């Protein structure tokens, strides 16, 4: 069995004066997995993420990162293990140039100048930011500010990456490039946690899904079974990709009723056609 990259044991958290944001959640994110964290706004996704990088501490329960209890490790120390991309890029941009922004984390972790420079140049190139290196992030458009925060995170290459709605504000070309880059990191052993409302992406990219609703973990499993379960989707107020509905409607013709991607449905149609041909001959 794979090791746990992140482990929450009966974790609860309540913001001052509010309802519990997380209510006794126990879950595991396996090392090397691509785990999607889904649920309505306010379901506890971001709170869960902040427990993992130390921005919040559980009021009850324990968090383990790479097999070790978080205990009183500082946010800066945890940053070596857990990289966190905020939903709103403006919550993490503060340096006066794009270059300083990307170098900040590298300096903090004590990388020597030549390594900082190498990673800076790589990150600028990977996110199409070369010509903005000396620009203040604040003058860039939303999509570019998002690219700056991604570049800063990638420069650090933490073993666990938690990304809160990273594709919001990006067009499909940039979103796809980001997803492919995450896939490469996953293939080299990194763990990816993707918080998103886009079920089409969950179906296509994740291998495990955690579903939160009102601070509780209400379901978990492979995307195909989670997204094709009308009960889970309804309970968590989520809507699966359109193809899920199509798959269900076509199931009376002998196709599986749980296709959640174009690939899966086309494969099923191909198998079905081959079967029919075989029966005929």
């Amino acid at each position, binding site marked *: 069995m794979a090791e746990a990259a992140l482990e929450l044991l009966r974790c609860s958290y309540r913001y001052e004066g509010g309802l519990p944001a997380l209510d006794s959640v126990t879950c595991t994110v396996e090392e090397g997995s691509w785990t999607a964290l889904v649920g309505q*706004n306010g379901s506890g996704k971001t709170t869960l993420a902040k427990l993992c990088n130390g921005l919040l501490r559980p009021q009850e329960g324990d968090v383990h990162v790479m097999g070790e209890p978080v205990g009183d490790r500082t946010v800066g120390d945890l940053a070596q293990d857990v990289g966190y991309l905020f939903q709103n890029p403006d919550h993490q941009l503060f340096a006066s140039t794009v270059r300083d922004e990307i170098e900040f984390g590298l300096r903090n972790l004590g990388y020597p100048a030549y390594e900082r420079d190498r990673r800076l140049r790589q990150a600028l190139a990977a996110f199409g930011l070369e010509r903005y290196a000396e620009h203040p992030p604040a003058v860039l458009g939303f999509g570019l500010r998002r690219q700056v925060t991604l570049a800063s995170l990638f420069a650090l290459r933490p073993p666990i990456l938690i990304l809160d709605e990273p594709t919001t504000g990006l067009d499909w070309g940039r979103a796809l490039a980001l997803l492919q880059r995450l896939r490469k990191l996953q293939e080299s052993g990194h763990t990816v946690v993707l918080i998103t409302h886009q079920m089409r992406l969950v179906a296509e990219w994740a291998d495990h899904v955690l579903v939160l609703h009102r601070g509780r973990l209400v379901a978990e499993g492979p995307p195909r079974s989670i997204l094709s379960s009308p009960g889970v989707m309804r309970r968590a*107020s989520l809507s699966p990709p359109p193809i899920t509905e199509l798959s269900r409607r076509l199931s009376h013709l002998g196709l599986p009723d749980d296709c959640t991607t174009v690939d899966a449905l086309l494969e099923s149609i191909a198998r079905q056609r081959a079967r029919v041909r075989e029966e005929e001959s």
Partner: protein
Amino acid sequence: MAPIVTVNDLHYAYPPVLPGGAPVSVLRGVSLTLEKGTCLALLGPTGAGKSTLCLCLNGTIPHLVGGTFSGQVSIAGVDTRDVKTGELSQTVGLVFQDPESQLFTMSVADEVAFGLEGLALPPREIEKRVSESLAVLGITHLSARSPLELSGGEQQRVALAAALALRPQVLVLDEPTASLDPVGKASVLEAVKQLRDERGITIFWITQDIDAVPGIADHVAVLVDGRIALQGPPRHVLGRRHDLESWGLRAPQMVELASRFNERWDNDALWMTVDEAEEALERRLREDRG
């Protein structure tokens, strides 16, 4: 009937970002028209100039931003350069992506009244318009609440109500559902449809949510690098999967399915909705069985 929105060969460059720099050219010859009571979905990659085009529609550009402007934008027959932005705000309402950035008062009712108070309308008229707008958006029950404690979907409906209270003819929506969850998104899109269908309001809708477009838009335009690369009825534009992908956009899932079905089984299908795909695939699979 004359179109309510006409953009004619619009070129625009922002003033230089850094002192001594070059002007930043964003729009390079945009032309489009929009009929009253219809919805245009504007698609385009990041940085294509979509938000800039929005600001041109309500006169923020060129009145408040400066820069180099040529060509023409006219709303309900009025050239945006000939009127002040305050006057245009009664014709063109604007709603942005991030609800929190546009809400700032203590209560939902105050939020919706804010723009009206700026017009120095009599209190009774303000009250009437506020309650009417809240009712249209289905948020009357929230009127005493603080906008900051509402869900994202509710906040966007407050922003829509505030825009609606000014009785605009055109609503410009800049990715209004980008930060919402599926439930919030559905509630906002339903409200938008209703404003068009029941109030005859013209909708100019920027979105990246491609799967929501076929259900709402009457017309789709794609802005690429400051120019309209393609426009027309939804089928005509959204059906061109490979063109969309070459511009950094994704086709709706049913279009992608049809296109990949065609590649595999040499067909010329085009499906926009689950209903269309279901009907065609059902026929196909039954034919296989003879």
